[in-house]
């Protein structure tokens, strides 16, 4: 198992390097020049100096090497300094955003909490809805509940989140006025009242994302439970006179969760991608909004870094899913 984990981690590194190459060079082709952000009143020689200080005149492989070094070495050092108060990274150049001329990672650190609260809650709620639905649909296969669950799942992944989001806004904020349609990022949760406010502004985006996630997870859960219900051990358990409750929740559930857990792990990074749209609908000032803003402003370092972070998440969670599978299912032994 340990050798397997080590080998998987070692193969992940060249994959990530290749992805970083693809992302860096693709984004680097962008036609917009960083000079377009500098006001025209700035004299030409000053403009040239600004561009030089931004490092855009270097050949592309130099910039790639520098960016990669900053991403994997300088920025983690900065993070370490931030937590432990050390000064390892002092004086080292960080990835600088064209838009704000401040380190890209400072902006990302500011944006992460918004994305995490909304997406994290949505994913948890989605799982909590999906698992019972999946179990009960499988237990009563072809019942009206199962049919309704199938329909719900089909609608869940057919209706795009930007439509469900807008639909909920029209119904609940415009017509009924129950929830705000715009997420207020500056709200601080201090007391009961501000907590309620936070819960109300999170309600709509979380509902949209939770329904979307619940749709596919409930399908996986259903088919996994169905697979297990036909197994011999279920018949044995029933023959021994165990209650249906024990059979279903004690025996079947534990076994059918194995594939579902890996599916859940695999779904986490794609949520970040999907959240780009939801963040845009509800004006949540998170990572997705930062990416869209950076794309419109031609802020190449920001786009490269964010996209690469998304890619790192995907590769990491693929790794986690593989390892989880091996840990959870003793029948699977990697050599």
């Amino acid at each position, binding site marked *: 198992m340990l050798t397997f984990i080590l080998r998987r981690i070692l193969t992940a590194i060249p*994959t990530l390097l*290749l*992805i970083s190459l*693809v*992302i860096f060079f*693709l*984004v680097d*082709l*962008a*036609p917009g020049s960083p000079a377009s952000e500098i006001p025209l009143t700035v004299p030409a020689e000053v403009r040239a100096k600004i561009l030089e200080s931004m490092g855009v005149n270097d050949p592309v492989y130099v910039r790639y090497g520098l960016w990669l070094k900053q991403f994997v070495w300088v920025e983690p050092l900065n993070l370490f300094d931030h937590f432990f108060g050390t000064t390892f990274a002092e004086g080292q150049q960080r990835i600088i955003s064209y838009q704000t001329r401040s380190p890209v990672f400072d902006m990302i650190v500011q944006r992460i909490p918004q994305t995490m609260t909304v997406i994290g809650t949505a994913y948890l709620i989605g799982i909590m809805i999906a698992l019972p639905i999946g179990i009960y649909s499988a237990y009563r296969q072809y019942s009206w509940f199962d049919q309704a669950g199938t329909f719900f799942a*089909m*609608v869940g*992944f*057919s*209706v*795009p989140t*930007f*439509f469900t989001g*807008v*639909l909920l*806004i*029209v119904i609940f904020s*415009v017509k009924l006025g129950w929830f705000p349609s715009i997420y207020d990022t500056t709200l601080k949760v201090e007391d009961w009242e501000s907590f309620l406010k936070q819960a109300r502004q999170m309600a709509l985006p979380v509902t949209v994302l939770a329904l979307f996630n619940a749709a596919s997870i409930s399908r996986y859960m259903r088919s996994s439970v169905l697979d297990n219900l036909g197994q011999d051990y279920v018949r044995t358990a029933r023959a021994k006179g165990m209650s249906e409750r024990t059979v279903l929740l004690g025996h079947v559930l534990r076994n059918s969760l194995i594939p579902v857990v890996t599916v859940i792990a695999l779904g986490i*990074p794609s949520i*970040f*991608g*999907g959240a*780009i*749209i939801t963040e*845009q609908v509800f004006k949540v000032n998170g990572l997705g909004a930062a*990416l*869209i803003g950076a*794309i*419109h402003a031609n802020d190449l370092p920001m*786009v490269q870094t*964010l*996209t690469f972070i*998304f*890619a790192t*998440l*995907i*590769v990491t969670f*693929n790794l986690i899913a593989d390892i989880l599978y091996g840990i959870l299912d003793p029948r699977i032994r990697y050599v």
Partner: protein
Amino acid sequence: MSDPLAAPTIEKPRNQWRDVWDQFTTHKGALVGMTVLGVLLAFVLLGPFLWHEETLTTTEKIMLKNKPPSARFPMGTDQLGRDFLKRMMQGGQVSIAVGLVAMMISIFLGTTVGVLAGFFRRLDGPLMRLTDLFLSLPLLPLLLVMVMLFRDALAGVLGPEFGTFMLIVTAIGITSWMQSARVVRGEVLALKEREFVLAARSIGTPPRRVILRHVLPNVISPVMVAATLNIAEAIITESALSFLGLGFPPDFPTWGRLLYDGVSYMQQYPERVMLPGLAISLTVLSVNYIGDGLRDALDPRIRGR
């Protein structure tokens, strides 16, 4: 009375596709999906012939902006006084065309990669690593980046409308072929060991002809299912791009673009958000149901029952 001398009726040998169709019609969801999709297609394709937009002068358009639905404008007019019904028809044409063309590109790439990887052992490793690499790319951000990068360049060469169209279908196509490649590879790996392929090989058929005549016709079922699902996915992706403001130019409507434009007027005119949104959702939902039905109908293990 029937003629006693008539030859006993021999049941005609049944065509495989007849069987598939019979199985398909037992899937209720697929039939409903087919009907809904048919209605939507008729609306989009035949609608423009039946509904003639009045030619209005600019002054008239300004007078007629933001009108509620009426006999003259069944879906009202938009903020520039354009007939919303007409825009919905045009938007649907583009959305569905994007879905179809992107599906073709993605299926072509996926089948090619899948067949090559499955058939030639030497290519299997590299091609599957490539597929894995594509699967670990963050697709939506990359699509956004690609559209941002090449939109203006292509628009300059091919014209703003056709250029954006080509860019969007290509971008969607090359970011969605991985699933079908994996499915096809699996099928080909199994088919390659079957006797008829061995027979074809043993009489000296060159690999190219083995692939085209013996392997490809047998992978058609999974490819068809993947194709339907790809259409749905492509329509959603295009609408998402339009919704993020990185799709087609404003005067070139698609359902996603109309939805995006409608969001600014959502409070006063919610129907401008609802109609395109419903159209997208219904199309995708019915295509997904058709795909579900096709999967059952094309599966020989289910078909007999």
